[in-house]
């Protein structure tokens, strides 16, 4: 699954960040910001709509992401 499918409060571990095309600068930036293999993530806030941006914590940092950006992040859920 990807990060955009995780509900509010949901926790997971990053598996990979997929490039949406060749040389995807946004995916590259997300890896630099800490979305790397085994990084723990938690959804802190979600909007009312399916396409609203979401807030995620990775490491000790909070980021706001649009759905399209969150879809790049492949995760496995922690139960």
């Amino acid at each position, binding site marked *: 699954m990807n990060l955009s499918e995780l509900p509010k409060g949901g926790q997971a571990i990053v598996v990979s960040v997929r490039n949406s095309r060749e040389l995807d600068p946004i995916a590259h930036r997300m*890896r630099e*910001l800490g979305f790397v293999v085994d990084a723990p993530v938690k959804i802190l806030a979600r909007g009312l709509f399916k396409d609203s941006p979401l807030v995620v914590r990775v490491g000790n940092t909070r980021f706001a992401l649009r759905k399209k*950006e969150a879809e790049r992040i492949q995760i496995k859920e922690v139960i």
Partner: protein
Amino acid sequence: MSRTPNQVHRVALVGNPNCGKTALFNLLTGSKQKVANYAGVTVERKEGYCRINEDLSFQVLDLPGAYSLSATSPDEAVTRDVLQGIYKGEAQPELIVCVIDATNLRLHLRFVLELADLGRPMIIALNMMDSARKQNIHIDTIGLTKALGIPILETIATQRDGAANLLAQLAQQHWPTPAHSNNLNIEARYEHVNTLMARYVSQNSTHKHRGFDDQLDGILLHPITGLIVLSFILFFMFQAVFSWAAPLMDGITAGVNLFGNLVTAPIPVESALYSLVNDGIIAGLGNVLIFLPQILILFLFILFLEESGYLPRAAYLMDRIMFRAGLTGRAFIPLLSSFACAVPGIMATRSIQDPRDRLTTILVAPLMTCSARLPVYTLLISAFIPRQQVAGLFNLQGLVLFTLYIAGILSALVVAFSMKWVKRDKSEHAFLMELPAYRIPKVRDLGIGLLHRSNIFLKRVGGIIFSLTVLLWAFCTFPSAPADYMGAAIDYSIAGRLGHMMSVIFEPIGFNWQICIALIPGMAAREVAVSALATVYAMSGSNEMVNQQLTELIAQQWTLPTALSLLAWFVFAPQCISTLAVIRRETNSWRVMGFATFYLFALAYLASFLVFQLSTSLLS
């Protein structure tokens, strides 16, 4: 390194956004800062001077915040190029001071490792140590210093003596070059970071501090309560802008008038010199200063929201709706500020990293109904729109005013949307924004920030506004009318002749020649059009009397379609050289300014044409 007297070294502060770098810069340099732009771009360049002792001082460059040297914004590109010594006109810094947030080490250490591979002399300022202690984060700085091969100094930028360690280290002039990390890719670098974190950083007990931030975010980022709080903040902000700025603006007008009277006292009233000083220079000065109260108050709020960490949260809340219109959540506050005045609104777009999003925001900001439009709207509405109830609920005059506001907003959405469409820009604009920890803003940082804004406005924008106002005065005065001419003197001037010529073009939208002439001095500011109309209709007396007389006069002389057409004109027309000057300044481009002027006038003409023709055919 041998010590020669009066050594000045160049150091650069580098760090991730939100690491407290600017606060540290303020602490090191005080208010002795030079703010300008980097050559050729609109990225802010801040430099200050830090004196250690009689023999040694530092020229401190506060580089734009960056997450990485693989730049994704003009800000980050400047940081990358200056550090590598390839930015034209910038000397490579002799020493890098990398500022990192002690509570956010995982992210910031990665950047340290990336900078280390530059192979330049470097020291680390481990900032926000007070917050780290509160969160029970223990950092073995000695171990970490050994592992990285460069000194690490603990700093608390928000305390008066919080940079003592750093200053002592700078004074020693011992600046080693860090060990090469030999990390080949991002994953390897993060593994390196994880090793360092495991060895030298520990956090006992749970995160109490983070708990507070999370609870606050639970309310402020919630789709419903978050929006309620946001609207309360904005409501308060606007109340303050209008209720605090009005007396200050009156005071400035009175002060400028008083000053004008003093200066012009020895000059004969009918002379050209009197007119130049009074209507040209003093009026130009007034035009520049009158914006200051609104700019300062708006920026006080924007800086407060920024420093407290709330601004990116507001951008998050508004992003969905702004994105659908072809904008970004970050454009929300600048556009909102433009309802008071487009000048600070456009200046605030510097917080938008993506250059394309920033340009779109700048171009639509003049469409927000600014406070200078109100005198024009009220004059026309009170003259032409009857005071009557609609559906037993609404006041027709109020309804018209509301429609004018909505027309501005809707057209901004349409323009933003069609710009995206015209550019066929299918590539994704990144949103991806860090939400920093909440902080209580420091008075010093707010003060220095305000000082910068007013400096930029007075020096860079003020000059253009001032010279254009004087130029406009010349257009409206020369050639002067013969002494026995009975009408308004402006008829004879270039502006008057232009107005008469323009009336051919403006006939299809219902403007008579009097309106056309008034529109020319009205370029100085929208509300000037009202007094210019009074001049053209050659009236004199106090402001209130003129307004009253003018209301009656135009109600008799103009048709309703003409009035509606003029209202529509003012929704769009860029009748404000200050806005145009700030667009030129903030985009560093005459072309963009020219485009903005052209498209806004074109829209204004089109809207007025439609309104005039439709209402004429409906009423006949």
